[in-house]
C-alpha cells in the first residue's frame, strides 16, 4: 500500500512529505541531463553542484521558473525520479498533494497534475502555497481572525490573508529570490565589469545581501571573469552596493504586500496590527527584509519557526487529514 505524499514543487527546492513519516526529501529542483542522449545524469544536490560547471554535452537545468513548469518533459522526469527515491513504484501509486503558486494559470495547473500522474501518482491534487504555508506555520486559520502570511520563494512571492480556513485576500508576483540573484549578477557585470555565475550571485546574497541596514555588516571578495580581458578577476563588494543592486526587486515584493493589505477587509486590519504578518520561504531569510516590510507597512513582521519547510508541512497536514481537508484543494472549493 502506497503512503500518500505531499510535494512542495518549488522553483528552488523540492520537498516531499510522506504520510505518517514526515519530510523524507529536501533537494534543489535541478536535473542534469546528457544533451545528446537525453539521459538523466543527476538530480537534486548532485545536479545543483553541476550548474555552470558542466562540459558541453551535459546540461544542468531548473525545470521550473517563476513557479511554473518551463519544460514539461524534464519536470515529469524529475518528479518520477523523486517519487522513485521515496519508494513509489508502478505497483504502489500514492495520492499526491502538490503545492503550487496561487497565481498559476489553468494550463500550468494541468501541466503539474499531468506530470505527477504520468510520474506515478494515482491522484494529484493542488493546494495554494500561501494556504499550505499558513497551515504549516501553525497559524490559527480555523478562527475568524485575520492571519496574514508572506511566502517568498525562488520564483514567486505571495501574500495572503486567511480567515476561517479560506483565503480572504491574495496578491502574488512572479518575483523571488532568484530575481535577487539575477539583479546581483547584472550589477556586478555593469559596475565592476566582471561576469559571475548563478551560484556565486546566490553566495553573495547569503553572505552580504540585505534589504535594510543591519548591524555588523562586512564586505565580500568576489571572483569572476573580467569581461574585457577574459581573465579571472577579484573585486570587493560592499553591503550598500548589494542593497542598491537588489532594491528594485525588493521593492516589488514589498509593494505586493502593501497591495494585499489594501485588499483585505477593514475588519481584519486590527488583527494584523495585533498578530503581525508571518514570513515564510527561503527569500524571507534575506537580512533586513522583515524590517523593510515593517517600515513600509507599519505592521510587525514575524519569521515562522520553520520557514523553509512550512509549505510542505502544511500540505502534509492535508494528506494526514485528507477527507476533512479536501475542500482546501484547488478546484474543490464549494
Amino acid at each position: 500500500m502506497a503512503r500518500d505524499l505531499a510535494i512542495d514543487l518549488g522553483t528552488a527546492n523540492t520537498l516531499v512529505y510522506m504520510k505518517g513519516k514526515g519530510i523524507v526529501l529536501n533537494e534543489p529542483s535541478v536535473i542534469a541531463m546528457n544533451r545528446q542522449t537525453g539521459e538523466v545524469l543527476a538530480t537534486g544536490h548532485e545536479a545543483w553542484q553541476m550548474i555552470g560547471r558542466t562540459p558541453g554535452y551535459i546540461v544542468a537545468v531548473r525545470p521550473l521558473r517563476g513557479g511554473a513548469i518551463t519544460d514539461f518533459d524534464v519536470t515529469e522526469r524529475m518528479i518520477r525520479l523523486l517519487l522513485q527515491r521515496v519508494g513509489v513504484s508502478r505497483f504502489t501509486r500514492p495520492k499526491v498533494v502538490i503545492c503550487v503558486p496561487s497565481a498559476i494559470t489553468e494550463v500550468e495547473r494541468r501541466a503539474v497534475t499531468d506530470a505527477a500522474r504520468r510520474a506515478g501518482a494515482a491522484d494529484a491534487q493542488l493546494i495554494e502555497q500561501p494556504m499550505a504555508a499558513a497551515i504549516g506555520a501553525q497559524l490559527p486559520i480555523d478562527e475568524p481572525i485575520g492571519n496574514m502570511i508572506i511566502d517568498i520563494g525562488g520564483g514567486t512571492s505571495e501574500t495572503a490573508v486567511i480567515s476561517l480556513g479560506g483565503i480572504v485576500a491574495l496578491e502574488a508576483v512572479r518575483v523571488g529570490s532568484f530575481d535577487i540573484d539575477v539583479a546581483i549578477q547584472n550589477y556586478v557585470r555593469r559596475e565592476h565589469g566582471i561576469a559571475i555565475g548563478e551560484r556565486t550571485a546566490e553566495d553573495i546574497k547569503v553572505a552580504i545581501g540585505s534589504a535594510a541596514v543591519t548591524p555588523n555588516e562586512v564586505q565580500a571578495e568576489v571572483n569572476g571573469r573580467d569581461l574585457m580581458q577574459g581573465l579571472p578577476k577579484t573585486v570587493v563588494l560592499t553591503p550598500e552596493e548589494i542593497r542598491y543592486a537588489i532594491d528594485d526587486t525588493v521593492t516589488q515584493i514589498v509593494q505586493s504586500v502593501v497591495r494585499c493589505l489594501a485588499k483585505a477587509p477593514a475588519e481584519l486590519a486590527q488583527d494584523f496590527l495585533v498578530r503581525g504578518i508571518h514570513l515564510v520561504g527561503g527569500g524571507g531569510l534575506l537580512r533586513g527584509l522583515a524590517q523593510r516590510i515593517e517600515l513600509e507597512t507599519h505592521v510587525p513582521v514575524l519569521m515562522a519557526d520553520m520557514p523553509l519547510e512550512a509549505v510542505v508541512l502544511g500540505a502534509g497536514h492535508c494528506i494526514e487529514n485528507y477527507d476533512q481537508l479536501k475542500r482546501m484543494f484547488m478546484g474543490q472549493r464549494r
Partner: protein
Amino acid sequence: MRIVLIIVVLICIFIFGFLATSRRTPISDDSVDDFHKHLDALSPETRKFNIEPTKNIELEDSSDGP
C-alpha cells in the same frame, strides 16, 4: 405474472421514494458538520500531532547526516 409485475412496480416505487427522500434530507446539516470538521482539522491542536513528530524526524535525520 401480474404478481411479479406488481412486485417490480413496488420495488421501483420504493427505490424512487428512497432516492427522493434521501435527496430531500436537509443538506445544510451535512454541510455545517463538514465545515466544522474542516475547521477542527485546521485547529493548531490537531496540527500539533502531525507537525511535531516531523520536527523530530528531521532532527534525527540531520544528526545522522555527514
